[in-house]
């Protein structure tokens, strides 16, 4: 049982907002080592806000974000990366003016030591052979799917203990989404802990060990991925069933 170990990420009663709106009203969740956990929710539920608050922008109003037992709540953004988390952000946010290889090397910024980075690069090129073919090409000229692969590869170069992904399926063709989820499964099989935020509940619930459902800034449901997939409530709200 994975849950026998202490949680890698433990969020307690997190309240987050912008200026005069509160978006998250007390979110609690846990991610254990080597798990794939997904957070699903509709557009505007607060999923991106949740991930951003882990990086301190916006800062939590109250509650705790514990990573390996240490509170991330007061760290500046660039220090969070050094604790061993890496975010594949919504909209990919690759550096368009840099080459593919340079983008990947940007992932090294969070690493304390560069030992083994050559081997990691080889590994990432095995996961995404497309990136290898285009390694000297400007990242801005890649297709959407390739940019998503690059954003994931960039985060993997950081060799994180926890990989955070914000809607990696956004705007991509189903075939490419399937390929990317396949790769995530492969990465997880090699021991990576993954926290996946998705609107695409169907694919995410099939991939995940456990899942949380975020509704209007609150966790409304949680459980084993495949069980939630069968839940009539989830079916109705997130999978287009009526």
């Amino acid at each position, binding site marked *: 049982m994975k849950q026998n170990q202490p949680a890698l990420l433990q969020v307690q009663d997190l309240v987050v907002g912008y200026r005069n709106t509160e978006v998250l009203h007390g979110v609690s969740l846990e991610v254990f080592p080597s798990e794939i956990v997904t957070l699903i929710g509709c557009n505007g539920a607060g999923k991106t806000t949740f991930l951003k608050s882990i*990086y301190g*922008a916006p800062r939590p109003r109250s509650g705790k974000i514990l990573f390996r037992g240490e509170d991330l709540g007061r760290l*500046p*953004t*660039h220090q*969070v*990366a*050094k604790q061993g988390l*890496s*975010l594949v*952000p919504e909209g990919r*946010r690759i*550096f*368009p*003016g*840099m080459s593919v290889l*340079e983008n990947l*090397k*940007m*992932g090294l*910024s*969070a*690493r304390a030591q560069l030992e083994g980075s050559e081997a990691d690069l080889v590994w990432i090129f095995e996961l995404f052979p497309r990136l290898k073919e285009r390694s000297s090409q400007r990242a801005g000229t890649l297709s959407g799917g390739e940019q998503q692969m690059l954003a994931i590869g*960039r985060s993997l170069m*950081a060799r994180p203990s926890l990989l955070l992904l914000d809607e990696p399926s956004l705007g991509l063709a189903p075939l490419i989404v399937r390929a990317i989820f396949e790769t995530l499964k492969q990465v997880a099989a090699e021991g990576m802990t993954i926290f996946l935020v998705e609107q695409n509940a169907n694919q995410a619930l099939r991939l995940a060990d456990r899942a949380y459902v975020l509704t209007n800034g609150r966790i409304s449901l949680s459980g084993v991925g495949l069980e939630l997939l069968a839940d009539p409530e989830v079916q109705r709200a997130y999978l287009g069933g009526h």
Partner: protein
Amino acid sequence: MDFYVLGQQLVNGLVLGATYGLVAVGYTMVYGIIGMINFAHGEIYMLSAYLTAIGVSVLSYWGFGSPWALIALTLLFAMAITSLYGVVIERLAYRPLRGSNRLAPLISAIGVSLILQNYVQLSQGARNQGVPTLIDGALRFGDQEHFFQITYMQVVIIVVAFISMLGLNLIVRYTTLGRACRAVQQDREMAQILGIHADRIIAAVFAMGAAMAAVAGVLITLNYGSFDFFVGFITGIKAFTAAVLGGIGSLPGAMLGGVLLGLAESLFSGFVNSDYKDVFAFGLLVAILIFRPSGLLGKPIVEKV
């Protein structure tokens, strides 16, 4: 058109343009990374003129006789001190205003500029100051009566300017620091999420820009031999014009803009009127801002380095 006058103006223009380019780089890099025009940048150039005088006299006193050693050590000294100024100015006058409206840091920059001018005027005096000539002689082209020449000091300026530009380009293109600069420029928040300490990178950009301006300041001061506390103003505006001409934010643009402005100004003063050369340069600035505000290579610097 006299061939020898043309030759001479081209030589002078290239020398002038190389130094404009060195100063322009500081405007363009700072603009690229935090989107502000650092109006105090010209004063860094002015400071480096005074640092040249200090460096040369102290080093001579210590017994450095070789002009090459004097030039090299003075360059390093001025680059180090001005980098420090660049970093401190950013820390005290601009960083606290980051995230406020866009006008605030501009006003702060003008304030810094005035403070530096007055501080130098008070501490060093308002009079013109001078440094001795370190390198004599020239290469001549032509016969006894008709010729143009390039002095050895001008050769030094062009060579040192070229090496500095090349070095800066290599840093920006191929080093971890350069990559981090480009990342912060393209998407600061994402760079921070990846673990980049953006404030440090911005400080490094100020340091690099100041060091390049110091190279220009030292070389020009050694070439002309005299300066006062006001030299940063004209050179600053000329270099800013060069940065806009090349496309503000573009590193190769700043270098190209510098050389083109130097040549244009020099040809104008050789063939049209030398009294109006500054007016010509500022007219050019106004014309670019009206007709082609994005300049010749106007895209973010990252698009091409």
